[in-house]
């Protein structure tokens, strides 16, 4: 009986042990899964052309499609997504962002201090001078933390010809030309009359001058 009881106890212990190992496996797998989720984001960040992370922060700059091609004088809007990989406490970081032209000239720069706990997303607007020429530009942002550049990211946009303005100009020109045309039509008889009078006056002047010599 004792032997049978011992066998049952051994089976129960083995089952318990197996359940324990299974639970441990699940916990470890769960932890790994969570870690992979974070790491996966970081990998995506690294693989993406407009985001990098160099340390405990990850940064992604993104210009919405509607701001990818902007008209001259219009602002460019971008979002900056900051991820604190250390994920332990709220920290103050400096977000520095630039607008750079195709020849790497910085045409706009600004920096601001932001508080980030785990992750944060910011929308910022860059107002460029109306004199800024057409062409390709880049918005570049950096995270400075403890005087070190922790992450940087960039995205590009274009300044294009203001089609709407051109249409407005064409419309104005058409209106002006039409008005001038109408004025000419309505004043044609007056102009013709005036020219005829001037010609007649000149002819009479010549006749009188010739005869009165």
């Amino acid at each position, binding site marked *: 009986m004792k032997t049978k009881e011992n066998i049952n106890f051994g089976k129960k212990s083995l089952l318990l042990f197996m359940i324990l190992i299974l639970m441990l496996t699940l916990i470890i797998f769960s932890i790994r899964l969570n870690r992979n989720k974070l790491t996966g984001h970081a990998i995506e960040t690294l693989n993406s052309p407009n985001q990098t992370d160099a340390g405990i922060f990850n940064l992604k700059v993104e210009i919405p499609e509607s701001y990818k091609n902007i008209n001259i004088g219009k602002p460019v809007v971008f979002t900056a997504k900051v991820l604190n990989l250390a994920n332990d406490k709220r920290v103050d970081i400096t977000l520095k962002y630039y607008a750079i032209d195709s020849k790497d000239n910085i045409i706009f720069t600004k920096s601001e201090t932001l508080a980030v706990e785990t992750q944060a997303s910011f929308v910022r607007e860059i107002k460029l001078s109306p004199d800024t020429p057409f062409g390709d530009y880049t918005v570049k942002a950096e995270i400075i933390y403890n005087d070190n550049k922790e992450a940087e990211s960039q995205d590009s946009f274009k300044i294009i010809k203001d089609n709407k303005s051109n249409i407005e100009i064409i419309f104005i020109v058409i209106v002006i030309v039409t008005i001038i045309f109408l004025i000419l039509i309505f004043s044609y008889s007056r102009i013709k009359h005036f020219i005829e009078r001037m010609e*007649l006056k000149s*002819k*009479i*002047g010549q*006749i*009188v001058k010739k005869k009165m010599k």
Partner: protein
Amino acid sequence: MTSELIITSVEDLQNEINKQVKARMAYPGIYVSLNKTQKSSEDNLVKNNIKTDKLFFIDCVTSEKTREDVLHISPNDLDKLSFAINTFIKDIKGKKFLIIDALSTLLIYNSENKVAAFVKQITEFTADNDVEVIAFSPKTKGEELLNKIFNFFDKVNK
């Protein structure tokens, strides 16, 4: 200076014109020819030993340009005719006269009121510029017009 309307018979019209022009031969004049062509009018004057070298003709009968020193104006364009007369008056310096041969012809091409307005405009302008005006009209034509324009002239000679 005076303005005179001479109403005469068709037969005496040319003689009367000759007489009036001859009396003013010494100084320049503007001759508005509404009845005859410039050539015909000038020939008539020359036949009667009237010098025409100081006469400025406005021919309202023909539009055919024969001479450089003659203006051709349609009789239905009273604005242009008035403008031409006024321009001649301004351009000819010194004493001058204006002959209108014959006013009633204008009625063929224009309404009475238009002709009356034209006469008023001409007599006012000539009065302001010391120009002697002699207008002719045959007796039988345009009596109603003549009644309308009598008052614009200093003298009416019937």
